[in-house]
C-alpha cells in the first residue's frame, strides 16, 4: 500500500507540489494527469527517494520514504521521463547488471531475466545490443529493468510519450497485466484519454495542487457532467438540429452532415428519456441514438480550468 501524506516541495520560493495526499492499494493502476509543469515529475521523484520533500512524506508498505529510503528503493521500480539506458551492452547483460544491483540471488537471475523478457515481449532481442533496439523496445527494456526485483510499486513518468500508437497499445496491455499481478502502478501523462481506459484511479494535478482523485467515473460525476448525444436520422437532420436548439438541458447542437446531429446534454437520465420521446413524437425518422462516453478531454479541461480561474 502506498500512502502519500501531504507531500510538498518548494524549489526556493517556488512551490512545485502543494500538500498532495492520496492512497493506492495493490492492483491499482493510477493515472497521474497534469499539463507540463504541473508537478508530476517532482512528485514522482520524491516518491522515488530522489528528491527530499520540503515537508510531508509517503509510506510504501509502512516504510517512510525519508526515514528508510533504502527499504523503499528495494520495493520500487522507477522509470524516468527519459530512458537513461546504457547502450553499449547487450539486452540480457543490462538486465543481469540490474538484478545484481538489486541483489537478486545469483541462481535466480537467469530465470528472472527470462521472465521479464517474456513479459515485455523482448525474448527475441535477448542478445541484441541495447543501442540497436527501437524506441518502443527500449521503453519495454526500461520497464523490464524496473521489474527484475519484483517491486511493489512502479513509478512510470510519462512512459507513453514519443511512442507510436502500436507501441502505446502494447504498453497499455503490459501495464494492465502488471496491475493484475497485484503491483501498484503510477503512470503519469499530460493527456488524460491516453490513460483513462486502463487506469482504475485517476488524479489530476495542476500547478502543484491535486484537484481531483478517484475513479475515472467518480471524477466525471463530481463535475457538472456534460455528455454528448448523437442522433442519426434518415433525413431532415438540419431541421432536427434547429428543432433541438433551445430545448431544456441542451447546451449546443452540431449538425454533423445530412443524417447526424450531436448535442451537448447536461440533464439526468429521466430528462434524456423525455428528450428522445419528444423527438420521436415530433415525427423525426430517428434510426439511432448514441450516447458518447464521458469525454475525458473535457473532464480534464473542466477540472484544470477550475483551478486557473
Amino acid at each position, binding site marked *: 500500500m502506498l500512502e502519500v501524506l501531504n507531500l510538498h516541495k518548494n524549489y526556493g520560493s517556488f512551490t512545485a507540489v502543494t500538500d498532495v495526499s492520496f492512497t493506492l492499494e495493490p492492483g491499482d493502476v493510477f493515472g497521474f494527469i497534469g499539463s507540463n509543469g504541473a508537478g508530476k515529475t517532482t512528485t514522482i521523484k520524491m516518491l522515488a*527517494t530522489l528528491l*527530499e520533500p520540503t515537508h510531508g512524506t509517503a509510506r510504501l508498505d509502512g516504510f517512510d520514504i525519508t526515514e528508510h*529510503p533504502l527499504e523503499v528503493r528495494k520495493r*520500487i521500480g522507477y522509470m524516468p521521463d527519459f530512458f537513461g539506458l546504457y547502450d553499449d551492452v547487450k539486452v540480457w547483460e543490462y538486465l543481469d*547488471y540490474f538484478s*545484481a*544491483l538489486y541483489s537478486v540471488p*545469483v541462481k535466480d537471475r537467469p530465470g528472472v531475466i527470462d521472465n521479464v523478457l517474456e513479459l515485455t515481449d523482448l525474448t527475441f532481442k535477448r542478445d541484441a545490443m541495447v543501442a540497436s533496439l527501437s524506441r518502443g523496445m527500449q521503453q519495454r527494456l526500461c520497464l523490464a529493468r524496473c521489474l527484475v526485483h519484483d517491486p511493489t510499486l512502479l513509478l512510470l513518468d510519462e512512459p507513453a510519450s514519443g511512442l507510436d500508437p502500436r507501441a502505446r497499445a502494447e504498453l497499455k496491455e503490459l501495464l494492465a497485466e502488471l496491475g493484475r499481478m497485484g503491483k501498484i502502478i503510477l503512470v503519469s501523462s499530460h493527456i488524460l484519454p491516453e490513460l483513462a481506459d486502463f487506469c482504475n484511479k485517476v488524479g489530476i494535478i495542476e500547478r502543484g495542487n491535486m484537484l481531483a482523485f478517484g475513479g475515472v467515473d467518480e471524477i466525471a460525476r463530481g463535475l457538472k457532467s456534460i455528455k454528448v448525444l448523437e442522433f442519426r436520422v434518415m433525413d431532415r437532420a438540419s431541421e432536427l438540429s434547429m428543432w433541438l436548439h433551445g430545448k431544456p438541458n441542451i447546451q449546443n447542437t452540431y449538425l454533423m452532415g445530412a443524417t447526424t446531429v450531436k448535442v451537448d446534454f447536461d440533464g439526468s437520465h429521466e430528462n434524456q428519456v423525455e428528450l428522445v420521446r419528444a423527438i420521436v413524437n415530433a415525427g423525426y425518422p430517428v434510426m439511432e441514438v448514441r450516447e458518447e462516453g464521458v469525454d475525458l478531454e473535457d473532464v480534464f479541461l473542466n477540472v484544470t480550468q477550475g483551478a486557473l480561474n
Partner: protein
Amino acid sequence: MSLWMRWEERNPMLAETRIVLRRWLGLKGDNLQAKLVIAAVCVVVLGIIGAVARYSFLVDTTVAFPIAWVLLGLVSIITLHGALAREREKRSMEVLLTTPLTAKQIVLGKLTRAVPAITAILVCVPVFLLASGLGRAFFKENGLTWGDNLPAAVVMVALLGYLVSSSFFAMCLTMAVSAMTQRVAASLLLSFALWIVVYLIVPIILSSIFWGEAGISMWHPMAAFFALVGFSEYSSLSSFIVIGWQLALGAGLLVFAIRRMSRETQAAGAAVSG
C-alpha cells in the same frame, strides 16, 4: 568466481567490473572480441619479455619504473574518468540512485573497474625485471648499487608500494573529478590536467619555496624512485613519504567523492543508513 560473488554480495556495484571483465576476458560463448584481446595481450607480453631477455644489455632496467608509473596514471584516468560522469551524461544516474545502493558502495564499487588493468601492469614490472637478468644482478653488472645499500627485497617492496600508491592516488583523483563533472570529456580533461599539476607543477613550486631551488623535490614520486636506485642524494626514506602522502590524499579524495554522491540523492539518511 565464488570469492568474487561473495564480495559482490557485500557491494553489488562490483557487478559492473564483473561485466566489463566478462566482456574483455570471458571465453564463454562466441566472444570474438575477448579472444582477440587475449591473443593480442599474449603476443605483446611475450614479445616484450623476449626482447628484454635478448637485448637486456642494451636496455636500462630502471626505465621500467617511470614507464610503469606513467602507464598506471594514464590507465587509471582512462578507465575511471567516466565512472560517474558517464552516468550523468547518459542520464542513467537517477536510475542508479533508485537502486538500494549507498553512495559509498557506488563509489568504491566503481573504483574496482581500474583494478584489472592496474594489476596487469604491476605484474609486468617484476616480470620485466626477471626477464632482464634478475634485477639486482643486473644493477651490479652495470656498476650500479641500490640506494642506502638496502636489501633488494625491501627495495622491491618499496618500489612496488610506490607504484601501487601512485595508482591509488590517480584512481581516487579521477573518481573525485568524475563525481563533480557532468560530461565524460570534461572529466577526462580535468582528471588529466590535475594529475599533471599534482605530479609536475606542485612539486616544482613546493621545492622552490621550501628548498630554494626549482626542481623535483624529495616529495615527488620520481625522487623516491631515484633515491631507491641510488641516482639521487635523497634517502630511500623519501619513497615511504611519497607512499604515505599518496595514500592519504587518495583516501581524502575518495571521501570527497562519496560525500558528493550522497548529496546527489538529497534523500535524508541515504548515505548513513546502510
